[in-house]
């Protein structure tokens, strides 16, 4: 099982003829992902890697190939357009990898997406998601570090998610799914929404949760965990060393008030019953110890 992706996921890559889009489309296909179409306006009719048809529009791609997941690599100025195009075609799952999308574009987009409840946006500014059991990778994570298993991962980061997965796999702990929800201040899918999916997934026993400074999404997650989440959760919050008011790479990673600090987030999650991972070097270790308690 796992969440979001499965054996029936059919992927359309928006921006497939670009450098990054092409590179990652190839990597996804090499992993086993069923990439059925590409979209680049004006390049319809081309064939990518001798097997993936390229279309001028998402509408054409969906009609001709039955694509049901969009993976977006278009440059930031055009990212909102690409997301809206997929949403307008009713593509139920959209991962926007693009970094640097203006926040006010995402704000307007989020209003539009509220009118399309069947559509879920992951990102922007995210690594995407993967379901190792289904051999389906929709994103930029290195596929080789994953192995199928029963731990779900959710994170605001890219490379730190790979770090977490690397530690888990190194200890023989496989993943049911991994989702990077994105590092921007306004994103399509929150921690709480992904936790709800893991709660409902019979093949996820435990969740590794990786948050960071900025905003209060971790506190919202803590409230949800306390209220409804019944599975064990191991939580890491990074950015304890970050100074106030400075943007730490991610547009969303900035301390603007007390609740945005790492300590406040750790306290809320601990209060909610999460197993706190004390340093980023101990993600695997704490998860392993928590899994042992389950048995």
């Amino acid at each position, binding site marked *: 099982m796992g969440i979001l992706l499965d054996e029936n996921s059919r992927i359309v890559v928006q921006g497939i003829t670009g450098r990054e889009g092409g590179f990652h489309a190839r990597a996804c296909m090499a992993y086993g992902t069923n990439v059925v179409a590409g979209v680049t306006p004006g390049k319809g009719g081309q064939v990518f890697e001798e097997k993936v048809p390229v279309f001028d529009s998402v509408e054409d791609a969906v009609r001709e190939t039955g694509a049901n997941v969009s993976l977006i690599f278009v440059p930031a100025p055009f990212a909102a357009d690409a997301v809206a195009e997929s949403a307008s075609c009713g593509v139920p799952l959209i991962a926007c990898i693009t970094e640097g999308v203006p926040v006010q574009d995402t704000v307007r987009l989020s209003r539009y997406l509220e009118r399309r409840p069947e559509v879920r946006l992951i990102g922007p500014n995210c690594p995407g998601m993967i379901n190792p059991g289904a051999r389906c990778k929709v994103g930029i994570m*290195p596929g080789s570090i994953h192995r199928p298993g029963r731990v779900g991962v959710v994170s605001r980061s890219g490379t730190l998610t790979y770090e977490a997965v690397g530690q888990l796999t190194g200890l023989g702990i496989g993943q049911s799914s991994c989702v990077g929800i994105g*590092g921007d*201040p306004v994103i399509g899918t929150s921690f709480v929404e992904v936790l709800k999916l893991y709660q409902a997934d019979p093949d996820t026993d435990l969740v590794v949760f990786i948050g*960071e400074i900025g905003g209060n999404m971790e506190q919202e997650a803590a409230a949800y965990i306390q209220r409804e989440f019944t599975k064990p959760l191991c939580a890491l919050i990074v*950015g*304890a060393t970050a100074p106030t008011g400075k943007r730490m790479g991610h547009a969303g990673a900035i301390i603007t008030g007390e609740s945005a600090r790492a300590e406040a987030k750790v306290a809320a999650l601990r209060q909610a019953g999460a197993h706190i991972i004390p340093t980023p070097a101990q993600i695997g270790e704490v998860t392993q110890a928590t899994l042992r308690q389950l048995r």
Partner: protein
Amino acid sequence: MKVHEHQAKAIFARYGIPVPRGSVVTTPQEARQAAANLGGQAVLKAQVHAGGRGKAGGVKVVRSPAEAERTAGSLLGRNLVTHQTDARGVPVHSLLVEELADIRQELYLAITIDRGFRGPVMLASAAGGMEIEEVAASRPQDIHTEPIEPVLGLMPYQTRRVAARLQLAPALHRPAAQLMTALYRIFTECDCSLVEINPLVVTGDNRLVALDGKMDVEGDALFRHADLRELRDRAQEDPLEAEAVDQGIAYVKLDGQVGCLVNGAGLAMATLDVTNAAGAPPANFLDVGGGADDEKAAKAVGIILSDPAVNRVLVNIFGGILRCDVAARGIVLAYQRKGSRLPLVVRMLGTNVEEGKEILRRSGLNVTFADTLGEVARAISRAG
């Protein structure tokens, strides 16, 4: 991207928001002339990208053109240290010379993005003139938050509600509505992450005037604002941070000694936490990004090595897009250019990792390799 008060006020004025009469000067002689033009009395305001100017002595009232010249001489060319700057402060290269305002009441008005609401909110308070963080902490009930639906924009009923909450006199409701509407237009049309008027004053003759003005333009939106890009003042930025911005590298100067080069913002924050927990505080945050080539990696390492506080360097690359051999070549290049001998702790995983390690081994640099974050922590505390 921050802009200066006088730049924000010029934009305010263009959108019809009343601002005090004034002009920008860069020499004491110009300050004298500017004060004379205003009738002799004026306020001199240091133009710096930092709050807390008043308490730090960056805002002075003068009673004559001669005093304006003297005071300008004491402000210009100095660094101003406020509670928002580091100990070096920020340079004062220009002053805003403005007419004195007849202040009856000080208000606060701002628009920013509320993450939970996923949209803009207007913040208003009758407790203007002080730092809004203090108001938020001590009496949050005094701040009114008005969420704005981006599809509708700021609606007239909302401006009436905010005016009522601010307990404005009825005669001020219409000018307040116009001002709020203009502020929202600035926020959206200039892609701001914050516009703030603090204080917004009610004058003795019952007018609303933006006595101060602050605008943060979202860096990610500058591609569609060529005019706003021109407003950047590099002199206000930390020189290494400014260099990093130019190179497209996310860099933040910190207080420690361990120079850090990482790919990915989350992993970079995690790396700082690890090295800090090991008793070796980081000198910087640096995310070199996924698409870096060896020249960009070299520039990043160059920035780290330009920081005199750095006494060792930690590299943590979890390569997916960024190839390890590319990063390694960049590191060696930067060390050669700087002639540096500082010890390096390197942790590399992912694409072309063996080539990367081989390049570093052959380089003659003082490199310790680590495989895990735990090993990184041990190695970096020993390298000091």
